């Protein structure tokens, strides 16, 4: 069903579209009866849709059925990997398994609000109801596949040192202070354990160009800006290699 995750404005468009379709001149007179019936059902569906959306909005979303959730999960996993362990597509696609629900939800909102720029994820997120987002967040959080691997091992020791201790003499904060000593994250602060090596590099390298992009709505990504900015390429690679090995 279309209705639960549509915004009221969009369902009004749907309504208009169905009317416009019904206003087309009938092609053949003997089909007119069928068309009229269809026209009526289209109208009824449209009206029902508006009613349901209105009610859903009042209750802050309609509960997504287990079947809907399973279908959506399998859709997410097309790109994020069958156990949400991440995947190397044309771009590195992040691990969602074990991710903090609050972070997960905030990122989906960030894509919609264009605080975080990503056209693919804008479209993905835009069609999700709040209850679907909550169901997906809980499901991904519960998964715990082994890391996908593939990072150069020679960086891992340096990365561990930066992650656990930071580099106080050059003003680089210890990642562990916010992401936790096991890199599991907390609330809006993401889990990094097992995250894809190339994805972490890409995010840290482009932080200021991808996150916090809506000046009217500053967000928690601002915390990472100075950190990402002060890390050099080798340090980024080292930290990315280290976290990508953590379970």
């Amino acid at each position, binding site marked *: 069903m279309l209705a639960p995750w549509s915004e009221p404005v969009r369902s009004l468009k749907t309504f208009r579209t169905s009317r416009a379709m019904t206003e087309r001149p009938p092609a053949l007179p003997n089909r007119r009866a069928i068309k009229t019936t269809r026209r009526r059902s289209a109208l009824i569906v449209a009206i029902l849709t508006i009613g349901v959306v209105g009610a859903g909005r009042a209750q802050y979303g309609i509960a997504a059925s287990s079947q809907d959730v399973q279908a959506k999960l399998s859709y997410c996993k097309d790109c994020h990997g069958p156990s949400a362990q991440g995947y190397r597509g044309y771009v590195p696609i992040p691990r969602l398994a074990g991710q903090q629900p609050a972070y997960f939800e905030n990122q989906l909102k960030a894509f919609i609000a264009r605080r975080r720029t990503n056209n693919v994820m804008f479209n993905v997120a835009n069609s999700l109801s709040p209850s679907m987002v909550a169901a997906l967040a809980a499901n991904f959080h519960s998964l715990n596949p082994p890391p996908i691997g593939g990072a150069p091992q020679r960086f891992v020791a340096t990365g561990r040192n930066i992650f*656990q*201790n*930071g580099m*106080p*003499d050059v*003003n*680089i*904060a*210890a990642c*562990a*202070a*916010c*992401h*936790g*000593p096991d890199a*599991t*994250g*907390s*609330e809006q*602060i993401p889990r990094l354990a097992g995250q894809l090596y190339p994805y972490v590099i890409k995010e840290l390298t482009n932080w200021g160009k991808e996150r916090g992009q809506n000046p009217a709505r500053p967000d928690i990504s*601002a*915390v990472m800006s*100075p*950190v990402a900015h002060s890390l050099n390429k080798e340090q980024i690679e080292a930290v990315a290699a280290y976290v990508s090995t953590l379970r």
Partner: protein
Amino acid sequence: MDVRNVQTSSSKMHYRRKSLSAGGLTLALHAAIATVGLTTLARAEDTSSGTVSEKEVQSKLAYCEVCHGVSAQGFHGYYPIPRLAGQPTEYLKNQLQAFVERRRTSNIMFNVGHVLSPAMIAALTTDFSELNPKPLGGAPKENIDEGKKIFESGIADANVPPCASCHGPEAKGNGPFPRLAGQVYDYVVNKLTNWEKERGQNPASPDTSAIMQPIAHSLTQPQIKAVAAYVSTLE
């Protein structure tokens, strides 16, 4: 302590030396010798040694604020990270020393504290003591009244003195006694719950944290939460 200053200064010289040309190397050596000389002088006069540029202070402040919040109002990272804004300079200095001397256990803050020169510590603590952002908030509201009562009157039956007698009626702190006004709720709960495991950990070097130990020990978990909620709301 002066020995450590000398070591810190010369390791800093190492850093700068990397970016210097061969000609600069001799200069750096002279500077190192001069630094040693100055430190000895400073020791004789008992003043803090060295200076620090405004730019270095600003970079270090930005680094501190990554975890402690943009106005040092505190932050919820993986750990609750304390508010430093409005904190008395003496308390801040003592805590940084406590981390370095392992009187207070925190690996992250040990590393952070270890690289700070006395001049940098003086600049940072002054800056933080002058900030006054709104409290971070987020404490449960229901026990605030009980917390206020404990804070102002103590719990005589349990030998808990009023917090206000040392931390002040507005919880602003004084000298070695920390400001509690606006402190992060979870942080206060965490500290009072684990006092003996985190503070006064170097038996060779007992410190003022011993004063709080019996008090933290006498408070029950609901009382700790009530006091923490109350102080976290104070501006």
